[in-house]
């Protein structure tokens, strides 16, 4: 049960700190998000810049880039996902510990970007794994990644531990494993995961 915001501020003025388990829990989760050390293309350079002294992602508690998916909370899809790379990305995502979050960084990661017409480029990683924050840009500046990160923190802060929209690890029925696509004859199979990609595919006319 949440405490009334105004009452909380009033109590704070009197030196009384009021909180809930949920707030503490989410505060802990959002304050030490460990990203996975994983770069795909040129956006990764901006991601590296974000972690360095000038932009300093460490200010928000996310400086510990983990080289193992077992220890990571967040995956930054930083760059073009080719169809050759997509199965590995999905597999790594599956290996991450719950609760896990994804930032799709840059035009390529969210939609295929300038390579959208390319036969070998995935048109957005959100076809296979649930993406929490999309950042446009080619590549997005470090400030944009910081903004995405803060947006993700706000999202984590807003998650209730019970009921609808709770974090996936607290929901026994939520999927833990997302199917890894395989290289088919012409394309990845399946070409998208219906659970995370609910948009209907555009049917092209035969003449196009």
């Amino acid at each position, binding site marked *: 049960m949440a405490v009334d915001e105004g009452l909380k501020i009033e109590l704070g003025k009197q030196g009384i700190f009021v909180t809930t388990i949920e707030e503490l*829990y989410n505060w802990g989760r959002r304050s030490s998000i460990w990203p996975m050390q994983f770069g795909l293309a040129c956006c990764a350079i901006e991601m590296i810049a974000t972690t360095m002294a000038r932009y300093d992602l460490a200010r928000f508690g996310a400086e510990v880039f983990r080289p*193992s*998916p*077992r220890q990571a909370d967040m995956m930054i899809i930083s760059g073009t996902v080719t169809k050759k790379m997509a*199965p*590995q*990305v999905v*597999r*790594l995502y*599956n*290996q*991450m510990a*719950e609760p896990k979050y994804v930032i799709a960084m840059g035009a390529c990661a969210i939609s295929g970007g300038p390579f959208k017409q390319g036969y070998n480029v995935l048109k957005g990683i959100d076809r296979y794994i649930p993406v929490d924050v999309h950042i446009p840009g080619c590549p997005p500046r470090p400030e944009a990644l910081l903004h995405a990160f803060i947006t993700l923190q706000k999202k984590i802060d807003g998650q209730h*531990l019970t009921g609808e929209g709770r974090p*996936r*690890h*607290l929901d*026994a029925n*939520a999927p*833990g*494993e997302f199917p*890894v696509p395989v290289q088919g004859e012409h394309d990845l199979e399946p070409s998208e995961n219906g659970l995370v990609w609910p948009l209907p595919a555009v049917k092209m006319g035969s003449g196009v």
Partner: protein
Amino acid sequence: MVSSPYFSLGVLFLVALCFGLTPLALAWLWAKAFSPAKPNAIKNAIYECGLVSKGDAWVQFHSAYYLYAIIFMIFDVEAVFLLPFAVAFTGLGASACLAMLVFVLLLIEGLAWAWAKGILTWA
């Protein structure tokens, strides 16, 4: 029982045990309630670089690799001894030079043996 000289020791032992076990139990309960495990086949796989592991980890290296190791030793030891030899060369007497020559010739003999055996040709 209270009068036993070991009573206070027993109490201290219990306190020490609780001191260690309580945080572990609390952490376990916390994880049970707030961070339940969500395992799947891929997550439980051993390899974690995005690729499916192939074949057996119990591979055997070809026994012929010991010859490469021996040749490496020959050149390694030679280099270690040649460096101080070269540095002190001008101040050395004839006997020292002779000893060094014998040493180098011994190593060259080993190399010649390896060469004659045909292991310098990459198969």
